[in-house]
């Protein structure tokens, strides 16, 4: 175990320590404090990054880059500005995700997520198949949205971030955020209606 075991957050006290206090320790070069922050935020930001880019490998890279940035240059997060660490990390993760989405613009990346939550044996196979297909179509429709609309939708629907906080993360006003959400939902309605029509045709003629 040795070195690897040394920074495993094991003490309850540490797990309850505030982000600010942990960041102060990270600024002093304490790996243990960084390990606690990593444990606290990896799952949350992995899910956020995955929802934004739709690919597990890329989501892993994004979370890793964002958290390592916090370790290498802890002074880039300044708590005196009144921004929560989680909000700051959402900004970094969103910007990294937008950056990657722009780089691969034009390429289609199919969502490769492991769909979870359907392990219930009672669900019959055909129902499961239908639900899988619906999930795939929904994921495709969300992934085809413009980057900022996609990020706004993810932050407000799935990350539990308030509208005000999401507006701060995206550097827009609350009205601007609402407009992004409205456009995202209108686009989704249109795309999903098309998909459903297609699905209906497949069922009738397939």
């Amino acid at each position, binding site marked *: 175990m040795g070195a690897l075991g040394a920074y495993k957050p094991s003490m309850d006290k540490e797990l309850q320590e505030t982000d600010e206090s942990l960041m102060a320790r990270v600024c002093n070069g304490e*790996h243990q404090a960084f390990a606690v922050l990593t444990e606290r935020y990896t799952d949350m930001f*992995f899910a956020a990054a995955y929802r934004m880019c739709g690919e*597990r490998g890329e989501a*892993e890279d994004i979370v890793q880059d964002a958290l390592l940035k916090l*370790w290498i240059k802890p002074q880039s997060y300044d708590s005196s500005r009144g921004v929560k660490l989680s909000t700051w990390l959402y900004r970094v993760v969103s910007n990294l995700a937008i950056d990657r989405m722009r780089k691969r613009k034009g390429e289609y990346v199919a969502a490769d997520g*492991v769909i979870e939550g359907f392990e219930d044996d009672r669900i019959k196979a055909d129902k499961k198949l239908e639900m899988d297909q619906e999930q795939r179509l929904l994921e495709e429709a969300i992934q085809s949205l413009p980057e900022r609309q996609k990020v706004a939708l993810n932050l407000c*629907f799935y990350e539990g971030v308030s509208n005000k906080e999401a507006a701060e993360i995206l550097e827009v006003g609350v009205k601007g955020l609402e407009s992004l959400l409205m456009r995202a939902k209108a686009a*989704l309605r249109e795309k999903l209606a098309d998909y459903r029509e297609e699905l209906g045709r497949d069922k009738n003629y397939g």
Partner: protein
Amino acid sequence: MDDRELDSLLARRATVKAPKMLAHNIAARAVMMPQDIKEQRGFRDFFVGLKETVSDYIYLPQPVFVVAALVLFGFVAGMFGYENVLVTDSMNGTEEVSTFLVINDQYMASQFLSEVES
């Protein structure tokens, strides 16, 4: 598809879990990485720090930042009286051109006056 139907579909979106050892691996990588904590000083550090701070908050492509930094630098230099700080030697022909135009205008005016007088 109405709003309620869309909301219920969005609520059923599948969730993903991070790979089991991801948090551990990130923490382990950090052990091998030295921290870069230093006080910013000097001109270059100021711009590097500024770029990093700005890109934490907004997505900023490199060329946009370079142009914005040059404009800011030119503006600050202008405030201290260095008006041509971003103008290279090859761009300094404006004075000669304006002098020529003035002389040319004077010549045309004198030609016109002499024609009127005669």
